């Protein structure tokens, strides 16, 4: 399948620039979530945007429950994109689960990615009391979450979008997130959500050899602050910065803070 169509790839910015910024969206949103961040980099960087298969305007026919049952399938997609476009000097900005996708790509395909920005990412969402790890969720919470998704996906999307987006003074943000969630086929959304919430890539963190910027979100239902601290402590060449906005989507709710964080790292 044609990779451009598969991932609905768009290349913008300075096409002559030797440096590339690849933006990868998280669960329930699409590449348009970076629309307020992109203008700040258009002059100096080639910018690559894409939709994860199963979301946005990616080709739904490319969705394979086998390929995407874990993040490795998405990591292979990222490698496909970088190779197909022959991208160089790549800084990969991965929001939420796509941060882990970028991390896996950097480990499995050495040399493809030069720098990594983890924006509201987590190596594991489930608490692990045995190891004293706090991911933010326990088994009972996740079981209830999936029961709610399976019982009435659209009702779940309406509720989840509000608690994940926060920023109650701007209800249009949660409404827009609810819409993109509702645009996903429910069976795919549930499978992808399960793959995300049960992932565990803690053992991969020390294998990352790139410079990494961990962007810590605040009052984030999906990623507690301690998770960002855990990432910084376990990724060898990493540093952490905070954005002062609530919710899981700072690129939407406080794009200029995200821009400043990325610029400080480039």
């Amino acid at each position: 399948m044609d990779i451009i169509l598969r991932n609905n790839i768009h290349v913008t910015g300075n096409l002559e620039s030797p440096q590339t910024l690849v933006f990868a969206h998280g669960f329930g949103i699409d590449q348009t979530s970076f629309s307020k961040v992109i203008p700040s980099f258009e002059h100096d960087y080639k910018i690559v945007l894409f939709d994860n298969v199963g979301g946005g305007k990616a080709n739904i026919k490319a969705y394979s429950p086998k390929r995407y049952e874990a993040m490795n399938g998405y990591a292979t997609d990222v490698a496909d994109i970088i190779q197909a476009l022959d991208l160089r000097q790549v800084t990969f900005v991965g929001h939420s689960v796509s941060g882990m996708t970028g991390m896996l790509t950097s480990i499995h395909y050495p040399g493809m990615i030069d720098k990594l920005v983890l924006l509201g990412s987590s190596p594991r969402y489930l608490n692990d009391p045995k190891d004293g790890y706090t991911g933010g969720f326990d088994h009972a919470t996740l079981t209830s979450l999936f029961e709610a998704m399976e019982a009435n996906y659209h009702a779940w999307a309406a509720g989840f979008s509000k608690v994940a987006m926060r920023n109650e003074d701007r209800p249009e943000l949660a409404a827009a997130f609810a819409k993109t969630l509702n645009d996903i086929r429910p069976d795919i959304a549930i499978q992808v959500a399960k793959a995300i919430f049960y992932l565990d890539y803690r053992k991969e963190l020390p294998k990352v050899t790139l410079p990494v910027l961990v962007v810590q979100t605040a009052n984030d239902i999906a990623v507690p602050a301690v998770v960002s601290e855990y990432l910084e402590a376990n990724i060898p060449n990493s540093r952490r910065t905070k954005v002062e906005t609530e919710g899981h989507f700072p690129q939407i709710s406080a794009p200029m803070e995200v821009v400043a964080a990325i610029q400080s790292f480039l």
Partner: protein
Amino acid sequence: MSTWEHKALNFINQTGRWDKDKHISSFLAFSISLVKNLTEADIALQLEFEDEETAKVKCASPLHLNDMVLNPEPIKKLLYTQGFKTIYWREIPPPKENVFKEILLALSSAIIIPVNTSPNNSLLILGWSEPPSFEPGFLECIETIRLRLKEILVQSQQQIYFQRIAVRFAAILHTIPHALVFINNDGFSGWVNQEGAALLGLSGPGEQLPAVLSDAMMQLRNKTLNLEAIDREAMHLFSSPENSISNWRWQMENKVLLVSCLPVTTQQISGRLWIFENGDQ
């Protein structure tokens, strides 16, 4: 006997002695690990073509390669151009020509062994940082291993397939609210679901000897209040193996059971299925 003949025989012997009480999923992992040790490879793994979009690494040594996803299409093209024969790379091709570049990092030679099985085809990939000799005895050893691996893969996949079917149908049959009792005509096997086991007072559901089931069914029948009428119907029912009955009323002390008894006849199995459901008083 040459060293490589000895190693091929060793592989056949050790995989033949594999402890069948262990879960089948470990059989293939054990076999691939054995190939790695015998050939002194630095990596060994299975690459399974799960669907048109997914070729997934399994049973890998080193472990960190497990679950990596490769694109099947370029790999299938390579296999096709090589006639699905074992591919011997004395030198690993440059990255642009190497469809396995992400798993053959920092290695100098590799062998790709296609193993065609149903439903999913697989490859066994071995890699070395110091190339082996590739002498004729070594190549013969690899081909012998390939044949045995195919048997192991087929056995593993079939057993996993049958286990899944058994789990699925048991879940369905145990969920049905009626009591189900199946008595095989072979005289050796029978089966009851959860409700059936409870109705007949058996220790648990699942496989039961027909003699145990018949005895329990007789005890149930003897508890009925309309035994004579039941016996009359039974005489007619069992006068021919094709006969069936439904809505057969068994009057118990505090309830009525509506009983169906249906012949089950397929090429592989024949017997009778008894269905008990609670009727009105």
